[in-house]
């Protein structure tokens, strides 16, 4: 009843082509943005910024990157953490070696470096598919971490292979407080999410989806496979690279190459699978599920004042059970659940 489109007519191509055709959705997203940009900075404490919201946004961005590749273009990848590492270490090196480089430019260059690496390691996708491709992207993971520990130039000859992110400064303003870091990350993530949404609605996105659904057919209708697949690898790696740079600069501060281990790649893949393949919203929901749920479970277990050893194990068990539960209820992910809920709401309270 509340959520219906009656009376909303589209009389122009612009109106028909907008991201959110329903007024309710537009209002919802506007409210969400106001909440995120204005309300939360007013009320949230430093803990929420630096321990909950910033990692959530960063992992959302990484999941978004992988979703472009796996969800939209259908290329399974286990190298997301490696692309994040490339982004982080190159942003670090750009700032270190080019004095006075603007922060955002360094992040973009970091992302572009990741994109180049992504293109190189995306080449096998022209010949192999599915699980075989996943295995070949594993090579990225091992190669990048190996190269970063091996070639000392990348870490500025730090004896232990650890880099310390420089201060984040823009126009003389230093992003040092948790709230300012949050706003910076939020702005970057919002802009990139908007770009991604538009990209997947454009002909680029459509060709990705065509390749995903059947690449032979896509080729027949004139989509150039090499360009499309490599573009997907490049864009996806760019997103992961920027996320990796933010992970180092806005979140951890000091990182070792090991922080971008295979484990992290798997976590990002799970975010995409649980959130929903081929959905922008799904990337955010999946990141929330994987990043935030264990924290909430941990807090709950403590509130119940269980002994710690029991609480720690219980938390893992509940988390695992919830993953299975959600995947059984809706194999297409949390984003699909939200879509179903919206369809139900349209008819509520008078379903057919």
């Amino acid at each position, binding site marked *: 009843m509340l959520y219906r489109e009656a009376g909303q007519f589209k009389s122009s191509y612009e109106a028909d082509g907008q991201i959110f055709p329903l007024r309710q959705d537009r209002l919802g997203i506007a409210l969400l943005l106001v909440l995120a940009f204005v309300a939360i900075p007013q009320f949230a404490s430093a803990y929420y910024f630096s321990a909950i919201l910033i990692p959530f946004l960063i992992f959302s961005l990484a999941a978004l990157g992988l979703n472009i590749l796996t969800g939209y273009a259908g290329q399974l990848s286990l190298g997301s953490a490696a692309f994040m590492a490339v982004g982080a270490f190159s942003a670090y090196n750009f700032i270190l070696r080019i004095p006075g480089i603007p922060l955002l430019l360094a992040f973009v260059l970091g992302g572009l470096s990741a994109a180049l690496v992504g293109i190189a390691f995306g080449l096998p996708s022209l010949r192999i598919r599915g699980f075989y491709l996943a295995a070949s992207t594993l090579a990225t993971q091992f190669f990048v971490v190996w190269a970063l520990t091996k070639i000392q130039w990348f870490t500025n000859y730090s004896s232990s292979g650890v880099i310390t992110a420089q201060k984040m400064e823009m126009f003389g303003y230093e992003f040092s407080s948790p709230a300012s870091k949050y706003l910076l990350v939020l702005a970057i993530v919002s802009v990139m999410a908007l770009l991604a949404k538009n990209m997947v609605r454009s002909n680029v996105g459509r060709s990705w989806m065509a390749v995903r659904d059947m690449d032979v057919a896509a080729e027949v209708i004139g989509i150039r496979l090499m360009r499309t697949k490599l573009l997907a690898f490049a864009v996806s790696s760019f997103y992961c690279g920027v996320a990796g740079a933010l992970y180092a600069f806005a979140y951890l*501060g000091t*990182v070792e*190459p090991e922080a971008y281990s295979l484990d992290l790649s798997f976590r990002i893949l799970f975010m995409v699978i649980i959130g929903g393949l081929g959905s922008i919203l799904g990337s955010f929901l999946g990141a929330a599920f994987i990043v935030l749920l264990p924290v909430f479970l941990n807090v709950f277990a403590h509130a119940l004042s269980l002994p710690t050893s029991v609480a720690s*194990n219980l938390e*893992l068990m509940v988390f695992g059970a919830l993953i299975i539960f959600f995947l059984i209820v809706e194999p297409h992910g949390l984003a699909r659940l939200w879509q179903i809920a919206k369809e139900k709401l349209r008819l509520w309270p008078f379903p057919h």
Partner: protein
Amino acid sequence: MKCIKSLLVAASLLAATSFVWADQYVPLLSYRVGPYGSNGASFFGGLIDYMNLTNLNGGINGVKLSWEECETEYNASRGVECYERLKSKNGGASLVEPLSTGIAYGILDRVGTDKIPMTTLGYGRSDAANGKVFPYVFPLLSTYWNQAGAMVVYLGEKSGGMDKLKGKKIVHLYHDSAYGKEPLPVLEAEAAKYGFELIKIPVAPPGNDQQSQWLQIRQANPDYVIMWTFGVMSAVGLKTAQRNGFPREKIIGVWWAGSEEDTEPAGDAAKGYAAMSFTTPGNYPVLDDIRKKIYGQGKGNLKELDRVGNVMYMRGVTSAVLMVEAMRVAQNKYGKGKPLTGEQVRWGFENLNVDVARQKALGVFDMFPPIKTSCDDHEGSGAVKVVQWDGKQWVALSKTWITGDKALVRKLLEESSAKYAAEKGITPGCLK
């Protein structure tokens, strides 16, 4: 989302009110599940048992210790979340000990801004021993660099004098990560100084298969092998050495490859294997006290009494002893019987002096080397012992604490920390 958030707020309020503050609060970033869970459980078990014992004996001049645990799973981002969650509770954290390199790096910058001292017992950045650049970080007892120096001294003594090292071949078999590469500057400098050949052989983590590395070792036929490994890699290394007929008497392990968790899975392949340690295995009055007063009352943190006194447990107790001593020192300056702030505890860590007499009074004589810290030296000792697995338990091989070339380590440390200071724009100096 909002609903979950309000529940979270309610839960954290609940947790906060269940403690009475006026205690000295210690957040514990512990891990009891995951691949390193058993290490973490022993370490934090020892830490908590000693804190319980301190409280039972009347606290620190009457100030009781309180703590709250948070599971990190040895994962850097979980650790950062735990740190942020716990740091300002109950009147503010007095110190933090994450027992994980990744987490320690993740909160390295934060502890400085939050003014909470962080101890990293036997891991983390070696150059953090320079308190002028890292005022809030304390790699107490011994860093990786001093450990590597001591290893060379041990191998030299084993060969019959440091001059006998000339022309010897030493393999550095290492975990291919920041951790395994950390000692390289020291080992390379020592190799140049004493004229031995250093052969570096990396093992990609986790290191479940080391056949090719040990074949390589057999071909090189080295005089000694340094095993700078961690986790499953250590047990696999020992077993592969046995299979290839490499005598384990020629192997020396790093201290993180020198606990029961490493040798027991290796079975008889580990018998006679030696490793470094910053604690001396054995029994101590303080452990008897814990068994009697804590476990006797059923208040022990660990389920299995036989884990009390194992290597990781002892490291936990050591960490707690140093922490309590630092608080005691700080109370002498800032007022006895009053809870301290993080800044005050930091001063305590910087002016720590646990000599032999104090160790005897605490019932921990010879459990760890005597330690005396200063602004210049946040490590305080740098001495280690060589311990050997006799098939059932660890026993100390060295009778006294040994140190390596500390002057060399100091030089490397000054260079490395100066570079860090320049990168971060820190003006080195002592805090009051």
